[in-house]
């Protein structure tokens, strides 16, 4: 059965209106996703660290988004809360596109001590394309837990022991120098020289034999040996 052209046009317009209303009512909604897992920071006082959160668009249409920085809560009163720098804070994800959001956290030194812990929620929301008045606009999105720990400093033995050893050595050397144990031995005095002056030993002529050192045998004179002989004869 052939359709009346007017009826055909009405059907097409109705179909177009149906499709448009579906988009207007937001039936597709947010299709924003994130990689699971909290962001855990362990930072020394005054220190900074950066971690990434990854979001993605699992839908078939571009997805504009915005980032809400975390509000930190802690059980300890009178602390200075960590500060965050987040980049980017907004953007548009193409279909099937993913985006890394950099989160940089700094723990101030003021009013904080090692061991303090803060927690917060980082939110990434789809920006709705709806300016309707007199209604509640519903935004969908994903949230990420952030935990920040003020690191307890670790004890490095070398940083203490090596300077202590050096100081002890310096003190010991200074003490020994002061008490004279490190002083040089006095130089030997030169032997007194007679008026005649010491005669230098004569140089040996080439080819001659060195004089034999006198033996250590007891010297006996001819006279002494002959007198002993006479005594024996008696």
């Amino acid at each position, binding site marked *: 059965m052939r359709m009346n052209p007017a009826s055909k046009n009405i059907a097409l317009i109705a179909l177009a209106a149906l499709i448009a209303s579906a988009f207007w009512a937001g039936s597709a909604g947010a299709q924003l996703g994130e990689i*699971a897992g909290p962001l855990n920071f362990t930072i020394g006082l005054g220190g900074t660290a950066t971690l990434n959160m990854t979001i993605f668009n699992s839908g078939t249409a571009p997805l504009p988004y915005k980032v809400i920085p975390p509000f930190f809560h802690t059980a300890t009163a009178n602390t200075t809360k960590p500060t965050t720098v987040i980049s980017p804070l907004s953007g548009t994800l193409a279909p099937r596109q993913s985006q890394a959001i950099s989160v940089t956290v700094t723990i101030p030194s003021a009013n904080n001590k090692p061991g303090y812990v803060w927690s917060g929620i980082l939110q990434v929301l789809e920006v709705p394309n709806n300016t309707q008045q007199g209604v*509640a606009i*519903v*935004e969908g*999105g*994903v949230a*990420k837990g952030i935990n920040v720990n003020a690191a307890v400093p670790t004890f490095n033995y070398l940083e203490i022991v090596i300077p202590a050893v050096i100081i002890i050595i310096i003190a010991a050397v200074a003490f020994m120098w002061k008490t004279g144990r490190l002083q040089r031995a006095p130089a030997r005095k030169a032997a007194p020289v007679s008026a005649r002056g010491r005669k230098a030993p004569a140089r040996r002529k080439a080819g001659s034999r060195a004089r034999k050192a006198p033996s250590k045998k007891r010297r006996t004179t001819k006279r002494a040996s002959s007198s002993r002989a006479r005594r024996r004869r008696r």
Partner: protein
Amino acid sequence: MATIKQNIIILTIAIALVLGIALPSISFASFSFPYSNTVAASLTVPNVCVDVLSNTVIAFGSVAPTANAPITNAVVDTNDGNIAANILLDGTNWIASATVNYFVTNTVWDFSAHASGISYTSANSLGLAPGNLVNTFNVIGVSAQVPLYFGTTVPALAAPATYSQTVTIENLC
């Protein structure tokens, strides 16, 4: 004759010896044709959660001061990820202009619809965005759908105007 025979025998033995020594030492280089290479590839699929909402507008209609819009306005949250997630909620104040507004806690929610019979003072209220997210303590499983029902009450002193607010529904994983 004997000499020729001997020569033939010797020659035969020599040839046999040569072949016996040479043959085992002959090797053929092996190759495959055509040449092929393999490349190892790996892929890691992380745990993810996805937030898909059924609608982005809740129209409570016209509500008189001290009257309630029943907790029957549904928004269905679907988790299209591969890991369960917690549902968090917050919202903004109802705002008509810079000076005309009333508080966000007048909007209430629940996991089941209440056409009547629920006290708005004991119902779950929204927290004020940002920084006051309400944890519903409801875990939405993989590919699961969780309906959330919203209602609102209008304070007695609310001025006649057209008010708007924003409600946020997030999956945390």
